[in-house]
């Protein structure tokens, strides 16, 4: 794979290093730059990455084959040869474009949003930190999508997990309403830990890949798939299922989706960028990238698509019962991710990526617009508070839809943009969501009927809850004073939204389907584009039955939502009209089917009990108190005092030394008897000696 001349492949490292440069500049000099400068640096860094991605896309259009740009050596141990190389192929460039494009727009929006948010929360100095983290995220996401091996992908995977943690817990000392609390930091922890469970699956999959295939590098792995599939098919099943665990964590599928709704604690640009448009799509990217591994085993594919469909349906039911504007969107994201995972599971990789792109457009739009609405409510709140002179002591939730109403008049631009986004999400012809969702439904209809029906119901609910949201937020009379005083957002925020709205409308052109046998020029763009990497895919054809049914259901859903929420707009303090008719079902929907409570009971409490047991009983009571004090300290004391001191030293050595002394005394006392002072005794002794000597001489 050589770099063709005249093309821009060698620029690819810049997609990572421009954001890095941006964050370094902001870190080093941010203190002295103003807010505008910080925002400009960060947005230019992201924008630069987008420009480079465009250049790469252009280069690929000329030279569509995959180009690998080696960058640095990393690990070379034994048979493990792992390098940092950038992979420029059609799939990764699509991801790069989406991430950097939507990312740049969000950066620009965030300049305006954070300007107000840091003032509402009371810490202006934190502005810079936000953009440092945001640039870091772009860099990490770029590493993820441009990696040439599973390990590089994992580096980015972990990196975006870290940035998610940092950004969710941005206001770490308070909760979403600004009160001092652990709520935000707990949400960040929850995200990180739940992701970790997924990462565990991913890492095991990576290890098995290395063990079975001998390499982490994509090309080398995919080349050996037929051989391994023939020899040991269970290896591939294990790898793919473990990867799905990772996907469930990162892309919020059942059972690891619980972190995403809590992640709404972060500022809205974070929710838009990370938890709607880009990070959560990393799991989908992983499956699409590993297409050769997944395509081999049909049971795995069925499982993945059922998982995605189940998640889509499940999350949609919860979304219909939420009151917080961002929570509705969060569950909607989980649901749409379920669509994407189902598509990837079915083998409709192009459809999955298509939906990924269009979803990025309209979900980012919806989130950012929701942020605009929340800020509008905050502005109204402050306006009121200052005007009436009361303190901010009262707790007011600007995100609660029950406090809104009639914002269509106060925030016109936000209203129209939100409407476009909602219609795109609901899948109304001819907005972008229609085309991408339709392609998924088509593939399901053809190959997996169960999945098709589940997704259709989910689509029905999607349209329903979006309609509900629109009626509750924008129509009717303002239900609180604050809503009555809401103010529109400044242009720095609304202009990026307009760009996103345009993309949401026109996004369908990315992969236009064949309509009634007519293939318009520019159709199947994405299919052809991705075909270079993923191989030939079925060209999407507009099936009237599928398209008609989905449109019908969507319109029906909107009608129902109007019947319930729009015809007779909600009054102040009125309970949700669905509460009585649906009764316990609605109760479950409202309370997210008590999943978090179940996890608390099943996993977290036992875990805490075990750790407390280990800490108190095992560590302190047993280890410290008993073992250390009794066994070790006691044993040591026994050895030193009893054994050594008493026995060895006193009774042994001392006794011996003393015995020597007393023995000598006794001996000398015995011998002193000889010295009786009598001369005659001495004379006797003398004579004895003489005789002895004489005798000796005699006998010699």
């Amino acid at each position, binding site marked *: 794979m050589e770099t063709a001349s005249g093309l821009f492949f060698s620029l690819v490292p810049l997609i990572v290093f421009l954001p890095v440069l941006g964050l370094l500049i902001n870190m080093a000099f941010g203190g002295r730059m103003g807010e505008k400068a910080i925002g400009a640096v960060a947005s230019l860094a992201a924008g630069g990455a987008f420009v480079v991605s465009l250049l790469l896309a252009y280069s690929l259009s000329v030279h569509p084959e995959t180009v690998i740009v080696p960058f640095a050596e990393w690990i070379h141990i034994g048979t493990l040869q792992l390098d940092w190389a950038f992979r420029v192929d059609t799939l990764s460039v699509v991801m790069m474009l989406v991430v950097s494009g939507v990312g740049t727009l969000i950066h620009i929006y965030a300049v305006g949003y954070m300007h107000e948010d840091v003032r509402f929360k009371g810490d202006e100095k934190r502005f810079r930190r936000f953009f440092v983290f945001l640039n870091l995220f772009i860099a990490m996401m770029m590493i993820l999508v441009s990696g040439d091996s599973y390990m590089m992908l994992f580096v980015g995977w972990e990196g975006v997990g870290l940035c998610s943690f940092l950004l969710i817990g941005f206001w770490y000392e308070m909760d979403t309403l600004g009160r001092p609390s652990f709520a935000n930091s707990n949400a960040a922890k929850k995200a990180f830990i739940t992701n970790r469970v997924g990462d565990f699956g991913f890492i095991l999959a990576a290890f098995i890949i290395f063990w079975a295939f001998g390499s982490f590098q994509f090309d080398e792995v995919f080349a050996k798939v037929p051989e391994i599939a023939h020899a040991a098919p269970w290896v591939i099943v294990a790898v793919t299922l473990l990867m799905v665990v990772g996907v469930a964590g990162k892309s919020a599928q059942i059972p690891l989706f619980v972190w995403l709704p809590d992640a709404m604690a972060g500022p809205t640009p974070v929710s838009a960028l990370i938890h709607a448009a880009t990070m959560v799509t990393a799991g989908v990217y992983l499956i699409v990238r590993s297409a050769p591994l997944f395509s081999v085993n049909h049971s795995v594919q069925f499982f993945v698509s059922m998982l995605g469909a189940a998640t889509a349906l499940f999350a949609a039911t919860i979304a219909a019962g939420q009151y917080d504007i961002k929570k509705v969107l969060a569950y909607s994201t989980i649901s749409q991710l379920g669509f994407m995972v189902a598509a990837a599971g079915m083998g409709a990789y192009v459809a999955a990526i298509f939906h990924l792109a269009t979803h990025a457009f309209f979900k980012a739009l919806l989130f950012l617009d929701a942020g605009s609405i929340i800020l509008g409510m905050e502005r109204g709140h402050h306006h009121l508070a200052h005007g009436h002179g009361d303190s901010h002591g009262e707790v007011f939730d600007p995100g609660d839809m029950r406090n809104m109403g009639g914002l269509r008049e106060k925030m016109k631009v936000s209203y129209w943009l939100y409407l476009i986004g909602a219609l795109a999400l609901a899948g109304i012809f001819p907005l972008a969501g229609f085309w991408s969702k339709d392609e998924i439904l088509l593939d399901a209809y053809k190959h997996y009927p169960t999945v098709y029906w589940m997704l259709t119901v989910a689509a029905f609910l999607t349209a329903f809850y979006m309609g509900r949201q629109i009626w509750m937020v924008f129509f009717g009379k303002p239900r609180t004073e604050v809503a009555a005083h809401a103010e529109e957002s400044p242009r720095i925020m609304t202009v990026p939204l307009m760009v996103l709205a345009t993309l949401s409308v026109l996004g369908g052109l990315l992969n236009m389907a064949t309509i009634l046998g007519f293939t318009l020029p520019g159709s199947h763009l994405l299919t052809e584009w991705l075909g270079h990497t993923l191989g030939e895919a079925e060209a999407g054809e507009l099936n009237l039955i599928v398209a008609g049914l989905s449109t019908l259901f969507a319109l029906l859903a909107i009608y129902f939502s109007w019947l319930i929420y729009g015809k007779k707009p909600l009054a102040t303090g009125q309970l949700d009209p669905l509460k009585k008719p649906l009764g316990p079902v609605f109760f479950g929907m409202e309370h997210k089917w008590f999943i978090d409570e179940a996890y608390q009971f099943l996993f977290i409490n036992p875990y805490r009990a075990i750790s407390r047991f280990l800490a108190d009983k095992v560590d302190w009571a047993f280890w410290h108190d008993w073992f250390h004090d009794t066994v070790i300290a006691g044993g040591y004391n026994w050895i030193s005092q009893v054994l050594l001191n008493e026995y060895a030293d006193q009774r042994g050595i001392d006794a011996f030394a003393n015995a020597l002394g007393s023995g000598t005394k006794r001996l000398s006392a015995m011998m002193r008897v000889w010295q*009786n002072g*009598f001369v*005659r005794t001495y004379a006797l002794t003398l004579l004895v000696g003489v005789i002895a000597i004489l005798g000796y001489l005699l006998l010699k």
Partner: protein
Amino acid sequence: MVPVSYYLVVSAIMFSIGAMGVLIRRNALVVFMSVELMLNAGNLAFVAFARMHNTFSGQLFVFFVMTVAAAEVAVGLALIVTIFRTKNSINLDQMNSLKG
């Protein structure tokens, strides 16, 4: 001619008796006299041997022994007198100040 060995036997007997006297008697003076007896026995042996070897060295030696004995007696008796002055007795058994 009396064989030389007879003289030696007599000398031996005298020597043993003198030794016994040193051990048995408690009177310091008598002990001293026993010592003189032992010396005398030695002298006799000397002279006997001188006769046997037909030299005069033995006799000359006896001469010296006698001289030394005289000196020794003088000093020894002076000592005994001095001791008598302090202890007022010449009982050897009473002179046990060196008792350990």
